[in-house]
């Protein structure tokens, strides 16, 4: 191979495919801040990880927290969404950390619906309201 050869190939910078999970969640983060008048806000942690199956699989981990700044930045983890676990970015798996809700193989078209189902569940709603009430008690 000559030194003038382009080892980078033809890179495709535009992603013709879908939005990431983080894209969808980031667009939702401000709503809770507005609803709770800054008592609570949502935080998204995005990291890569490896799932240990027979063959390790590299995945993207999206963790959604609700943070209470007046409670020392205490945060409660609401859900984790795992990208790439079935090969492509979608479908994804998601698990709720407040109750036992879990959805596997969620398509991109169903993503926000399933997230709403988890966040709208009575356990998660109660958990967020409790956190809000605890925060409101702090002057």
């Amino acid at each position, binding site marked *: 191979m000559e030194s003038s050869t382009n080892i980078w190939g033809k890179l495709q910078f535009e992603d013709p495919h879908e939005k990431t999970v983080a894209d969808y969640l980031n667009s939702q983060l401000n709503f809770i801040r507005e609803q709770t008048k800054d008592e609570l*806000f949502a*935080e998204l*942690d*995005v*990291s*890569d*990880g*490896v799932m*240990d199956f027979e063959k*390790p699989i*590299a995945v993207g*981990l999206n*963790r959604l*927290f609700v*943070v209470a*700044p*007046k*409670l*020392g*930045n*205490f*945060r409660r*983890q609401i859900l984790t969404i795992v990208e790439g676990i079935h090969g492509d970015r979608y479908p994804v798996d998601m698990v709720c950390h407040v109750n036992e809700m879990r959805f596997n193989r969620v398509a991109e078209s169903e993503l926000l619906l399933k997230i709403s189902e988890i966040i709208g569940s009575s356990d998660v709603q109660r958990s967020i309201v409790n956190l809000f009430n*605890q*925060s409101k*008690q*702090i002057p």
Partner: protein
Amino acid sequence: MNIAFWNLDKKDLSDQLVQLTNEKSIDILCLAEVTDGVATDFIRKINIFHPKTKYSFVASAKNKVRIISRLTASSFIDKSDSYKSNRLSAHLLKLPNIIELNLVCVHFHAKNYWSEDAQALECATLSKAIGKVEISSGCHNTIVIGDFNMNPFEKGMVSAIGLHAIPDLELALSGKKGRQIDNTDYPYFYNPMWNFFGDHLMPFGTYFYHSPDNLSYVWHVFDQVLLRPNLKNNLANDYIEIVTKIGGDSLVDAKKRPDAKKYSDHLPIILKLKI
């Protein structure tokens, strides 16, 4: 809430710390054998991922163990002066309406310089210091985490006058004041790290040292978490993890021992609390 401890063996593992913190959602990170440069570098890198709730050093009069947290600095009240040695950092962590607990971080004397008996004797002083922290803070929800340079079964860890850390949570809960010996009460700690001995599950400990003399335990659990038993209801599922992988990188070598060449000779441990 997740609390991690890692003895870094003076290595520059700031990138691995970022990955560990993100992957395991660590709220409080306690580090031994870490240089200021590495700790600062880690904070700079992790805060790129956390623009809203930034990680920062927790102020302490003692710095043998450095503590870094995303919780607000004012949540930590320094109680480190209860022990004269630099080897203990103690704080009352106050999250209003959430929880109050004492977080005691330890990097105890190494076996290279201190015999088992010497360590055990010093544990009496350490235990008194922890008692002072509890009296001063008015809180008995205490967590002790760190590199004890002792195994859970050693005299300093188990003896009533030492840390009094036993492997049976129900027994530890049974007596309100702990165990009475000759009219003196000794409160228990629960030590879940006993569960990590043997080759039933990976890893086989947190530290590997195969002594050439007659007596070698081969694997050691020097990195431990001790809990006052009243924290039982705050323990999450699988509340202790000894970490062997960060991202795609294995912290152990082909023989399943801590890869001290690339990473640290100790494996990180994580305590997961349900709050």
